[in-house]
């Protein structure tokens, strides 16, 4: 129970770019939970699937570099972005599949004095959600809750990259990974809102390519969650956050209805239950109003 968890931490790009509140709230929350994070500040972007679309070897080499940097710490790696998880798992699958290919990529990494080593049972790179449930444990999390989020109605929003394809994302070992958000919400004392969008796509990958398709997806899911009575959504993916929160006023225009639903990053929701204040967790930086959540939380304190 009290065993210290230590990870090589890959924050990703967006958590330090357009959603700085994610990286900030992760640092606060990790410290309170007793998760020690060694930040991989030399690591690079996962490519988000886009670089792989251009040149698969380039994406695989870039992520092999990140894995190799993490392996130098002798710690498992943790990310806080569904998209990083998906893009990195895809590259890891190829790197682990063929030793000649792996050698070829490691040749590229050599001048930096690093190497990606395939582990016998698969080297570990988990997003915060998976780590929280599988390694930290829900019982231990429950024991840390200082302010149960009673009465807070939370809609889960996973992000495609931690859901599909199941064959690549460890669902054979951990079949309930598509239910973890619900489990965490309940552990924190909140109420799970069941609505259609939880496992659908936020639309972000096509925001510059087909704005209408993209915003219709985001707007529909936010609207469905509002109709189901949600006070907020929670997501482990900052790219989903960009479309669901930052683009929410634009999405409202596309779906032709008022939307104003707070979208929390997973560490923010955990942080609220650990007793942090919305402001400490960067919630004023959000676009959609977080007032309902703040009021609910204030009433609990």
């Amino acid at each position, binding site marked *: 129970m009290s065993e210290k968890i230590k990870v090589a931490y890959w924050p990703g790009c967006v958590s330090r770019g357009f959603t700085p509140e994610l990286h900030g709230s992760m640092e606060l929350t990790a410290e309170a939970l007793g998760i020690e994070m060694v930040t991989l500040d*030399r690591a*690079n972007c996962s490519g988000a699937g886009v670089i792989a679309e251009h040149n698969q070897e380039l994406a695989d080499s870039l992520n092999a570099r990140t894995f190799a940097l993490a392996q130098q710490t002798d710690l498992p790696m943790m990310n806080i972005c569904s998209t990083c998880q998906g893009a990195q798992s895809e590259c890891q699958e190829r790197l682990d599949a063929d030793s000649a290919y792996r050698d070829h990529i490691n040749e*590229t990494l050599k001048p930096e004095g690093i190497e990606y080593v395939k582990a016998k049972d698969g080297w570990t790179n988990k997003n915060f959600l998976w780590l929280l449930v599988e390694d930290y444990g829900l019982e231990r999390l429950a024991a840390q809750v200082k302010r149960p989020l009673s009465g807070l109605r939370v809609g889960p929003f996973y992000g495609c990259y931690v*859901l599909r394809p199941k*064959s690549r994302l460890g669902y054979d070992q951990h079949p*309930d990974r598509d239910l973890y958000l*619900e489990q965490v919400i309940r552990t924190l004392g909140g109420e799970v809102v069941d609505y259609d969008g939880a496992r*659908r796509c936020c*639309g972000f990958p096509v925001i510059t390519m087909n704005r209408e398709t993209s915003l219709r997806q985001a707007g529909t899911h936010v609207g469905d969650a509002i109709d189901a009575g949600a006070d907020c959504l929670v997501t482990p993916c900052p790219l989903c956050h960009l479309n669901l929160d930052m683009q929410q*006023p634009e999405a409202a225009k596309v779906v032709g209805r008022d939307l104003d639903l707070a979208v929390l990053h997973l560490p923010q929701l955990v942080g609220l239950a650990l007793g942090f204040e919305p402001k400490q967790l960067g919630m004023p930086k959000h676009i959609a109003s977080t007032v309902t959540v703040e009021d609910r939380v204030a009433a609990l304190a």
Partner: protein
Amino acid sequence: MAEYTLKVRRFQPEPEDGVAAGPYWEEFDVELEDTLSVLDGILQAKNDQDGTLAVRCSCRAAICGSCGVKVNGQSTLACKTQLGEAAAEAERTATGNGANGAGKTVITVEPMANMPVIKDLVTDMESTHWEKYRRVSPWLMPTGPEPEREHIVPPEAMVDVTQSVACIQCGACVSACLSMEADPDFIGPAALAKAYRFIGDPRDGQHEERLYDLANDPHGIYDCTHCFSCIDACPKGVAPMNQIMRLRRIAGDDYGIADVNHGRNHELAFTKNIEKKGTLDESLLLQESYAPGVKGKLLPTRSAIKGLLESIPTAIRGIRTGKMRSIPKLIPGVHEKLPGDAQEHVKRIYARAEESHQELNLYMIGEGGEEEGAPEAEDVPAAAIVPEPDESREL
């Protein structure tokens, strides 16, 4: 033998025998072995309880592609899903969602999504599947003189397209497609996987024309939202989304085709962005995705200017809340680089990978790769086995 409850979403097209027109749910209790299929369950309900329950099926062996449905919300073939596993999945998600397990387990069966329902589980695949399928000219169009005998092609090229040849036109991927849900005009996973089947085929002579067409349809290859739903839905391992991403790569990088959705610009802008900065500079990405030439040679197109203008209100809101308060986040290009010599190593990786450009096809080497062994010769479908070119024949 075990008992199962199938909760079927039925649809009555017009009022008949006291049943009002419209959709409704009905439960059927069936008793069958757990290894028999959901289709067997539906057919038992139809035979013993209600002959008006409509379902399309034929081979019962995942070959004909007729019985596409949604089981517990997942698009699939009814004949390929065992009752025991469907019940276990229904149980898992119900308890995972907080049910106490006291209620009975119910397997939900619905008609496929993204297409009109004709009756009960029978959908109209014409408007959403077959029409789009014909849209990609799904036949071989060779150019040049016809060979005297068969075309001689490298075996690996045919093994590669075998993945999309395996499609049985069941529509499960179309039903699962989250882009099509938001944009019914999207050409969709089945038709685009079929397009790859011909673009990947060395005998076809219209690769560039096909790619140009699919890249310049605003609902074409760049309208896929990369959600992986089609990959999990496909009962034959076609992985349609992977084929769509390869179409993008071939169109953009091999043929240099600029598309109406700025997809190629976005891909190049993203890739260059990381080469320069190591991590993503979102402001620069946004600008360059629409107008890569704004600082120099090219003028942005009218639609690019529109796209950029449309993103301004979002940026202003971000500035107001402090999301983009700091200078580096406001001005494209003033984003921090990686520390020390890290950026130099990233650039070096770019140089080597862009030069060598290897692609590892997991379908060809077998998932799990070397450790589980590449597929045996007999695993390669018959269509992929092409005789070794016999040089003496050409003499």
